[in-house]
């Protein structure tokens, strides 16, 4: 079996950060394969918080598309060896 390339095997440390009135997760740090899509992070958050509508964004002031690869996000916006992902839940209208 051919060896996999280092990039596809690489795990990224993701740190989930609650903002607004979102509940804080007991387990807020985890590792995910760089080749996974950001969608996996979003779905993980949805399951942990039992909520479907979440606002998810990174510190560089944008909300990544679910199709982005985690490794691309880490390479561009990670620092200190991790990718910080912020999440918020409800928001008052008006």
């Amino acid at each position, binding site marked *: 079996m051919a060896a996999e390339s280092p990039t596809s095997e690489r795990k990224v440390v993701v740190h989930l950060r609650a903002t607004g009135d979102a509940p804080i997760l007991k387990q807020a740090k985890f590792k995910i394969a760089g080749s996974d899509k950001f969608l996996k992070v979003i779905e993980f958050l949805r399951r942990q918080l039992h909520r*479907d509508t979440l*606002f998810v964004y990174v510190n560089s002031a*944008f*909300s990544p*598309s*679910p199709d982005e690869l985690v490794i691309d*996000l880490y390479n561009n916006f990670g620092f200190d060896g991790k990718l910080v992902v*912020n999440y*918020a839940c409800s928001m008052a209208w008006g």
Partner: protein
Amino acid sequence: MGSSCKEEGYLSLENMFHIDRNEECLIVDSFSEREETDDVATLVHSTSNETHIYDFHIVYSFSYKVPVLYFHGYQSDGQPLSMDEIENDLPPSSSKILRESKWTYMTLGEHPYVRRPWYTLHPCATSDWMKLLLGGTSMKDLDISSYLLSWLSVVGQAIGLRIPLELQQRSVKHPSASCFIINN
């Protein structure tokens, strides 16, 4: 966005082509536990071989004090697209966002400059989620293209427009995103 505007106008991105390929989609539903039979397959025919054309405008709302997206789609013969047809063109993740999110939803509104009903993403939650996105950054320190890139990262997901990651790199302060055309 709170600075005084000397000129009124809007940003536009026009003539975006969406090509609907005439292909058969095989949908296999093998994950449902409630189905009596496994491997239920549905064959879906895409009957049209149409090119749909979209125009996108970013208009500043003086009442909500945020940018608002206006867009419309039409067939190559000029026939406007209905909301259902537009939703069909959207990638599944965007349809889901429009249907389920309380941050953005699609309605018809009168375009303040074109003066005709265009589809729009309602701006009532924009100020709230922009505050989250921008964190502690004060409006004074933000140039318009940075603000719009943040705004577009959310709005783009709702309508199937993807912003390249490289554009979101904001290490340089001056407006390098020259892909916008300002119409007066």
